[in-house]
């Protein structure tokens, strides 16, 4: 009975695994471990500043990586961030094609391994 109630409570609290509002609560991770969170967010802030790459270029890289790791929070955040930094739809879609090319290429390049094995074990 206890475990059923707990399960129902869990279900009520978590209707889906991802909740868009949680993106705005990212900073709350410091609640359980403040020192590491602070170090992470300080580093994060530094990474995205203008440097050898512009903040806009970094935002487009982040958008591409967000699609590679398929993080819905990151896709949401870096779509907005790319727009705010002046990127247009074409640039953003090209960034995602880079993701697709690398992901597709990563699969296909392993085809060489398959070919090597085929050649090794066939007459």
């Amino acid at each position, binding site marked *: 009975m206890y475990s059923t109630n707990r399960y129902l409570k869990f279900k009520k609290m978590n209707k889906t695994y991802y909740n868009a509002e949680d993106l705005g609560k990212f900073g709350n991770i410091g609640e359980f471990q403040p020192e590491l969170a602070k170090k992470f967010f300080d580093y994060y802030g530094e990474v995205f500043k203008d440097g050898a790459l512009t903040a806009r270029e970094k935002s487009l890289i982040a958008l591409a990586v967000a699609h590679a790791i398929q993080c819905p929070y990151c896709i949401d955040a870096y779509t907005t961030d790319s*727009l*705010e*930094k002046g990127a*247009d*739809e074409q640039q953003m879609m090209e960034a995602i094609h880079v993701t697709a090319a690398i992901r597709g290429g990563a699969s296909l390049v392993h085809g060489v391994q398959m070919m090597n094995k085929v050649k090794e074990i066939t007459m």
Partner: protein
Amino acid sequence: MIKSLKAQNNTLSDTFIQLQVLNTPAGSGKVFPSFKDKIKESGFSKFSPTKIEILQINVGKMCNQVCKHCHVDAGPDRKEIMTRDTMEHCLAALEGSAITTVDLTGGAPEMNPDFRWFVTEITKLGKKVIVRCNLTIIVANPKYYDLPDFFKENHVEVASSLPHFSAKRTDSQRGDGVFVASIKALQMLNAVGYGIVNSGLILNLIYNPGGAFLPGSQSSLEKEFKTRLSRDYGINFTNLFAITNLPISRFLDYLVSSGNYDAYMEKLVNAYNPAAVGNVMCRNTVSVGWDGYLFDCDFNQMLDLKLKDPTSIHIADYNNEVLTNREIIVNQHCYGCTAGAGSSCGGEISP
């Protein structure tokens, strides 16, 4: 071409309804902190001007464009136009005043039949004139083709909206074909020297985000616009000013109808920057409506938030002392001017 909210009889053409939307809890149930309380926390219990340096005059709501984000709800169907009588009151107020700059806006200010006379008379008073030119008006009709020469003769500073260097993004905000016409107009302005280094002729571009997001860094956007416009079209300009869209009029209608209102307001509130408060434009500007009434800024004008002190509410009764000591009327839309790096008609404002 779409119609203005007023011509559509849209409920949001009523400023009372706009203020009601801004001051009731959001659909999500969220209650945003009052802007008045927020600036009080930042040390501004009485919010007053520092010194009146700019007179921003709206010479009419008529425009050849119907931009989706327009806070004036301007368009070809708006007939409100400033008369020469009211312009004469403006000139009388300017004469001998400490105001240094006259910022002419609309609608398309050039569509006012007395526009050229007004610019010439203001120039004779030794005041700097800024014209908020939508660019497309220059190529809209042969009678406007010589505007670049007219601006040059009067040393007018031109401030023109261009939300993006891509046609798709520009047209989705400002209407089909606006980008191509704007590029042509910019090339005409460049041809007489506007935006060219050492010409003394200033051509500033105004960037407004084309949706429910905030502008990024002004300097980064300027760099990107300069590179792209020069490379793709051979266009030069002086500076780019990044302006936040305030949640009023047509932009408010867009936010509400697209389901973006709550998230956008939350974004503005979360981005509140106390360092920007002291430099908001209502602290050095008085805004004049097409009918001569005075307001704290162009946005308060469009929300019909008239000044409190009845002794100087119309340009005919312009009183610098009363206006300098007035209390500025603030409301929830003001979060747009204090978000992030802050926003004014001259772009970012935080020190």
